């Protein structure tokens, strides 16, 4: 394991993807502001071109320029990311992994800041992919969204506004990578703020509509309160242990004999901050408002990248800092388990009664957060079980479960973004406020309707699509952990076996029941698309890039469902990197 100074050349070379992102942000700013402005040299009549400001040239006043710069920056960043993986995985086709590097601060007593390993690199890849899909799909977004009769068309076509959009997107991406790599709780928090402050603006980006600004205010107020409370919890942890290094906190937590009030209070306040990001139950009410007020690509970002941020935080806090010694029960286990069941049930029941497709997708993402929280609880149950001392399968189960969560977050990028992109495509025609926009879509646009149906089936977890694979892995992991006690005793009778299981087994049952409930509203979309009559038979407006993104998402959904070996290998690498000692 190599450690470099973050400001040295070697350290900088490890951060090439982030440097590319930074260069993209600068390029976005400079390229779109080049113009024919001149500066007069004082005391002379000589004027030299300053190139910045003034009237823009013809080539860079094209409104598509910012989006194209953003797309190429992200493609280049992904290329750099694969370039910097190191010799550990010369063959990326066998699974994505990375050698472990630690970047430290400059000075006499270097503090570990960032850790680059299979875990953080995989999450960086996920963030870049999500941002790439979102920015590619937004290329035509602002033009397509406005009616030609609208007076604001001129303003929407203006690329200054487009620059804002993609600038915020890329800055947010920079923050996300910091969250993925951080080894210090405060660095993690700075990354979280760097990622979420631009997202607050993106949610409120449609300031022409009443709904846009309302969604922005609701999302901002809730987000700001929960992140401030989370930061207060972090400061309590600092008062308790004197450091915010994850390794120091882990050691301090492990050396604590009986639970103390200060760290417990600090951790629970910190979980408030992350709970908002994953939209778990006390904060679920803001998700549908934010999703339906924001533009569809931004809502897709909220449902995937933003949720992933929260889960990185939860994994770092719950899995690294507060995971107890073998045989002890984690203090948060029961509360978190209850919360996860409430979250998934509430999300599904609310989605059942939802008539707005975007709100339905928002509630479904609340439900998915619940599934993943249940899986986190199972890891704690694995630690509290007594069987881990006898065999070594326990570690495998924990890695399997964490890997399943990462798998789910990865494949969500394909089908969640895909579903939002279909709605985005419908919005090129008219605002999508109720299910009637989907009526008869199959007759108007067979390919898009089929893709939407694939996304819905994947969200419901129907084999052989990607969503099935992730849910299957999670449930297998939970059952393996819950039944390990029983299997050791060789019980074969059904009823005693079930009663003898650890209570986390009921989390697996809750996931099953909830998946069954959710099938109704996912399939309903399919019925509406294929069997309802639409008022028009005309196809949707031709927006080729949006169609391309939908198509890519659909292929990804099917591909990772059928051929999941590569992804399973990849997420297992990432999960073992999370548990590896640092």
């Amino acid at each position, binding site marked *: 394991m190599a450690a470099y100074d973050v400001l040295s050349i070697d350290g900088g070379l490890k951060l090439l993807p982030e440097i590319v992102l930074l260069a993209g942000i600068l390029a976005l700013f400079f390229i779109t502001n080049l113009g024919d402005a001149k500066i007069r040299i004082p005391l002379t009549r000589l004027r030299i071109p300053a190139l910045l400001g003034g009237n823009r040239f013809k080539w860079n006043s094209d409104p598509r320029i910012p989006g194209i710069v953003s797309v190429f920056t992200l493609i280049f960043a992904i290329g750099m990311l694969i370039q910097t993986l190191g010799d550990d995985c010369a063959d990326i086709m066998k699974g994505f992994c990375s050698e472990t590097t630690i970047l430290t601060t400059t000075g006499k007593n270097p503090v570990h800041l960032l850790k680059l390993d299979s875990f953080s690199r995989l999450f960086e890849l996920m963030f870049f992919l999500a941002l790439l899909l979102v920015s590619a799909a937004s290329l035509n977004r602002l033009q397509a969204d406005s009616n030609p009769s609208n007076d604001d068309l001129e303003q929407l076509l203006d690329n200054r506004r487009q620059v804002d959009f993609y600038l915020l997107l890329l800055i947010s991406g920079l923050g996300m990578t910091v969250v993925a790599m951080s080894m210090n709780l405060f660095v993690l928090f700075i990354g979280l703020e760097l990622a979420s402050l631009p997202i*607050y603006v993106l949610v409120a980006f449609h300031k022409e509509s009443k709904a846009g600004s*309302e969604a922005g205010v609701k999302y901002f107020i809730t987000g700001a309160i929960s992140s401030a409370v989370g930061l*207060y919890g972090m400061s309590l942890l600092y008062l308790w242990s004197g450091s915010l290094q994850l390794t120091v906190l882990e050691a301090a937590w492990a050396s604590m004999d009986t639970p103390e009030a200060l760290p417990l209070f600090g951790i629970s306040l910190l979980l408030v901050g992350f709970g908002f990001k994953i939209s778990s139950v006390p904060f679920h009410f803001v998700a*549908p408002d934010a999703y339906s007020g924001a533009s569809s690509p931004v809502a897709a970002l909220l449902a995937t990248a933003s949720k992933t941020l929260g889960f990185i935080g939860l994994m770092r806090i719950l899995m690294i800092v507060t995971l107890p010694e073998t045989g002890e029960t984690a203090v948060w286990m029961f509360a978190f388990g209850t919360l996860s069941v409430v979250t998934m049930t509430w999300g599904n029941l609310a989605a059942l009664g939802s008539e707005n497709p975007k709100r339905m997708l928002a509630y479904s993402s609340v439900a998915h957060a619940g599934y993943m929280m249940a899986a986190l609880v199972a890891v704690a149950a694995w630690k509290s079980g007594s069987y881990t001392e006898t065999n070594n399968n326990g570690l495998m189960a924990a890695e399997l479960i964490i890997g399943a969560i990462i798998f789910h977050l990865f494949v969500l990028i394909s089908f969640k973004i895909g579903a939002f992109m279909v709605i985005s495509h419908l919005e090129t025609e008219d605002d999508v406020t109720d299910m009637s926009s989907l009526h008869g879509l199959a007759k108007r646009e067979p390919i898009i309707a089929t893709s939407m149906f694939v996304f819905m089936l994947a969200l419901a977890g129907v084999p052989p699509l990607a969503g099935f694979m992730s849910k299957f892995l999670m449930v297998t992991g939970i059952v393996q952990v819950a039944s390990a006690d029983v299997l050791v005793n060789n019980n074969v009778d059904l009823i005693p076996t079930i009663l003898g299981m650890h209570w986390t087994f009921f989390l697996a049952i809750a996931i099953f029941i909830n998946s069954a409930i959710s099938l109704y509203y996912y399939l309903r979309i399919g019925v509406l698309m294929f069997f309802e009559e639409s008022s028009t038979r005309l196809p949707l407006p031709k927006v080729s890039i949006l169609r391309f993104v939908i198509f890519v998402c659909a292929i990804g959904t099917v591909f990772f469902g059928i051929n999941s070996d590569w992804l399973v290998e990849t997420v297992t690498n990432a999960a073992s990197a999370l548990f590896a000692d640092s």
Partner: protein
Amino acid sequence: MIDPSWVAGLGVIIFAIGLWGAFTRKNAIIVLMCIELILNAVNLNFVAGAAHFGDELGWMYAAFAIAIAAAEVAIGLAIFLSLYSKHATISLDGLELLKN
């Protein structure tokens, strides 16, 4: 020198006031002020911790927290401004457009 525990205690009081205000007030600007109170309680905790443990990183955390708070205010006020230009109010009570 003031004992750090007094500083942290003041932080608890300010945090409680801020949290209570953030949940009960209806004016968006006052809610923003309450969020700032919470962030200032955070700063007091970091400063108290830095003084208690003699850890210079604590001072740095406080400085960064101030910067984050400033960025948050800037973004918050901009969002409220766009709310005001459309709804002609910044009261959080009137936000009922987005309903199921």
